[in-house]
């Protein structure tokens, strides 16, 4: 359950942001999680809810997660390949057989927050 560690990192960044932006209350946090990041969204939301007990800063915060599908690219054919959750991810170009580069799908990011001042 490494999502516990991920949740703690999120709270650390929120604390810094609250301080820097002079925020009173964080109402909503938008996160971006790639389907190849190794983070399970349900487990992350569970870990964040569990942290609410001890972290007052997120006590009433809503977390909104956007999952990012895999976008991969063949440099030789200049062609993109997309995979969504549940697909077998095949990182070989179906035209030329070259390895594909993952362009999207590994992200773990805090996009923005909605706050009361």
């Amino acid at each position, binding site marked *: 359950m490494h999502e516990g560690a991920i949740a703690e990192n999120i709270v650390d960044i929120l604390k810094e*942001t609250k301080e820097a932006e002079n925020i009173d209350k964080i109402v909503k946090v938008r996160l971006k999680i790639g389907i190849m990041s190794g983070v399970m969204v349900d487990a992350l939301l569970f870990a964040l809810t569990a942290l609410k007990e001890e972290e007052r800063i997120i006590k009433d915060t809503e977390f909104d997660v956007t999952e990012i599908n895999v976008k991969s690219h063949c440099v030789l054919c200049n062609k993109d390949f997309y995979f969504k959750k549940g697909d077998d991810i095949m990182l*070989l170009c179906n035209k030329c057989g070259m390895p594909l580069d993952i362009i999207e799908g590994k992200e773990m990011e805090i996009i923005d927050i909605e706050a009361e001042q």
Partner: protein
Amino acid sequence: MKRVVVERKILERNESSAQKIRTILKNQSVFALNFMSSPGAGKTTIIEETIRMLKDNYGISFIDGDLETDRDAERIKALGIDTVQINTSGACHLDADMVLRAMEKISLDCDLLIIENVGNLVCPATFDVGADKNVVILSVPEGDDKVKKYPVMFNVADTILINKTDLLGFMDFDMSKVKKEAKQINPKAEVIELSAKTMSGFDKWISLIERWISEANQY
């Protein structure tokens, strides 16, 4: 209500610590390997045999993050290798800060630093520990469905070692299926069949490490 743009990576702290590790190791010309697998796949045994084959020609240090038993660290210490154990009690993965702290307690006057991660095919894949190469081990008794089940881990591998091939005759394990699926999720990783019992495949594995180290030293 106001919207505040954050746009920060959740694991930025781990990333910067991993970067610190890379800088320290590069300055000291140390090449680092991060071993990951399920519990019992053979990390410690493979590390032990690898050290035996390399220690006459390379200085080696070892960071043990596999909490199973501290007998693991003892086995490696017995080979005369500078070893430090990370107390991972409860943790399901190593992170870069843990490795940084362990590096303070170990000799970096070496050519090769071996890190044994926590036995787990999920969590360690998400945390960069600053190693040059990730070694992911799958053992035959675990079954031939694991690459598909754990795509993130097999995708971060620089090489995939298939261990315990001495047991192939006793299990339903479709090697060509595993190799095909490994190539699909990670076309760049070399797959090497090993047995840490019979030592079959070790020549290939050892020459891969030697090639990696000499390539790293060219820069």
